[in-house]
């Protein structure tokens, strides 16, 4: 049997984290959670998951900042990232110049977006799609 794919959820809302964790676990993934960006980064570096689900608006450090760190770190930059947020992603997200680093580097696009409120089936379908690539 294929080993379970590992997903890390970074979200300051424990309810969202638990929701996504439960949904993933029910679908046969191993799901770990972190309540802030700093914990998230160390967890990712340690666990090397297949996928990271990242909330954007978190106190202290935003999901965008964490995304930039992941994509700038050669060790983990190939890990897939999905953003989940209450932002209207199609509209608001484009306005954040988040892929452009101060040193001129252009980061790749994230692997997916999902907007809150999250529908479990839609979320799981996206996760499956991203991991099949």
């Amino acid at each position, binding site marked *: 049997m294929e080993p379970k794919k590992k997903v890390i959820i970074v979200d300051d*809302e424990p*309810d*969202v984290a*638990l*929701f*996504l964790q*439960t*949904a993933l676990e*029910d679908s046969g993934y191993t799901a770990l959670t972190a309540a802030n960006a700093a914990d998230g980064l160390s967890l990712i570096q340690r666990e090397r998951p297949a996928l990271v689900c990242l909330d954007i*608006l978190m*106190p*202290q450090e935003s999901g965008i900042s964490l995304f930039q760190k992941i994509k700038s770190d050669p060790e983990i930059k190939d890990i897939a990232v999905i953003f989940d947020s*209450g932002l209207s992603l199609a509209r608001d997200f484009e306005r954040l110049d988040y892929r452009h680093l101060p040193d001129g580097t252009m980061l790749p696009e994230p692997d997916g977006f999902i907007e*809150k*409120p*999250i*529908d*479990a089936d839609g979320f799981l379908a996206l996760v499956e799609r991203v991991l099949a690539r």
Partner: protein
Amino acid sequence: MNADFQSLPAEVRNWIGRQLFEHVPNNIAVIDRDFSVLIANENFRVVFGDPRGKRCYEVYKGRKSVCEQCMAALTFEDGKVRVNDEVGTDRNGRPAHYVVHIAPVYDELGRVSSVIEMSYDVTETKSLQKEYNILFERVPCFVSVINRDLRIVRANGLVRDTFGEKSGEHCYEVYKNRTERCTDCPAMKTFADGKSNRSEQVGVDRNGRKTHLVVVTAPLSRSGNEFSHVIEMSTDVTDIHKLSDELQKEHEFLRVLTDNAMDALVAVDEKGVVNVFNNAAEVLFNTKASEVIGRARSEQFLPQEFLDTIGNGSGSLVLPETVVAAAQGDEIAVRFSGSVLRDAERVIGGAGFLQDLRPLKQLEQEKIESERMAAVGQTVAQLAHGIKNILTGLQGGMYVVKSGMRAGSEDRTAKGWEMLERNVGRITDMVKGFLSFSKGHIPKVEPIDPNAVAEDVQKLYADSAQRMGVHLCFEGHEGIRKVPMDREDIHTCLVNLVSNAMDACQASENKKCSVTLRVAEVENVVMFEVRDSGCGMDYEIKNRVFTTFFTTKGRGGTGLGLMVTRKIVQQHGGKISVDSTPGQGSVFRLEFPRDRLPLPGAGDAKDKHDLK
């Protein structure tokens, strides 16, 4: 002497012989071949003095010798009668101009023994002539004398200067550079009717320039009705024409300007008679200009203040917003600016510009409306955002419950149930907040210890403060008297302020922030103060913190906190103020003067303060 003379009565002959000589209004002197004056009549003596024993040249000209071209000498030679213009000196030494007739007197041998000089004074005539000449030459208009052939006999200096020296040529050649006479020739008309005529002509000067002339022709007769010449006097009105053209243009320009002006223009004379009423005025008052021009209707179109201004002649008047009456009795809001018109010192009326403020007002209204709509939109967006989070929690809860039940895991089902409860709680709080804000609620006033309320809030946040690394401390006021307040309300206020302060600390770059919650009473004013050393607020944010749904916290805030806080504080007769420096922190103060606090007893506070 003819035979008639011999037949005259003796006394007449005697009078002619003696008295005529003396009384004739000429100067008569008889001179011999030595130029000595033999006899002179009374007139002569009056003018030149007694000439007896003197030579004529001494008498006439004060000379010592015979004149170079002496006419008398010639007549002594040839016996001819001569007439000459002479200039001499009268007995008073003044130059005298006179015409002299010299006639010979023959002796028995037929020789000219003496000559008779008869002269009359033309000094005055001469000077008149001279004056007329000067007048003719120098008058600042074209003067020419034209004969019946329409040839110019004489022309003055200005004609020569302007049209060239052309005496003898036809007037139409000179003035108009034509080869044949003009059809409307004023000189011909005068020759025909003998009357003075006036006309306007266009001439061409020696440089080919068009010259507008006003021409007056008059018969030139020395006496009676017979005349052979016409005198033509013309004035160059080219400049006046030009001026009039320019005036016309100017007038046209002003007309276009006033007609197309956006603002209504109404001008009246000093009697209130309307003389300008432009297109914009027609539109503004819904009245045709033709119905008001020339009528005394100033009070209908101009504000009374301005009519008073015209009345007392003081300069100008600007009314940023006033009202005038429209045709149907409606009132129109206008911006008015008017000036009193003067001719030198005299007030001749006034002109006023009226800017219709209705479109502006409309715009203003639309702007307010759109701002309100934007605010509503913002509110809805914020609400939607808040609801999204709660909805996610609810969905999550349902999912986890379902998942737990499916897996037979009580633990997981319980967790999911908790999520549902928590999120239902959140949405309940949110709705409550809305309701309490929008409807207003009635405070339950009872004497409370302000220290105790504040300390409760501090304890409530102690854990999270520690987690966030914020130093949260409380400073009470020892021995403070109880204060009549709604405990829950004040608690809510302090929770809002402390929660804001903690957020400000989190947003700050300073990792060792502190929040101080302080209670104090100074001069019967009870004060709660929340001070933080967090990120602070810039001017823009500071100005908007008390506005509904304003939040800098993204999904973390409903934007209701400070709005609700302010409302509660006001219901307690207090006020809220804020001091903030970006990067250094903020202080929010709630101040409640004791004499304005509500009296204990439910429902009391609102009524009391509404009555105030």
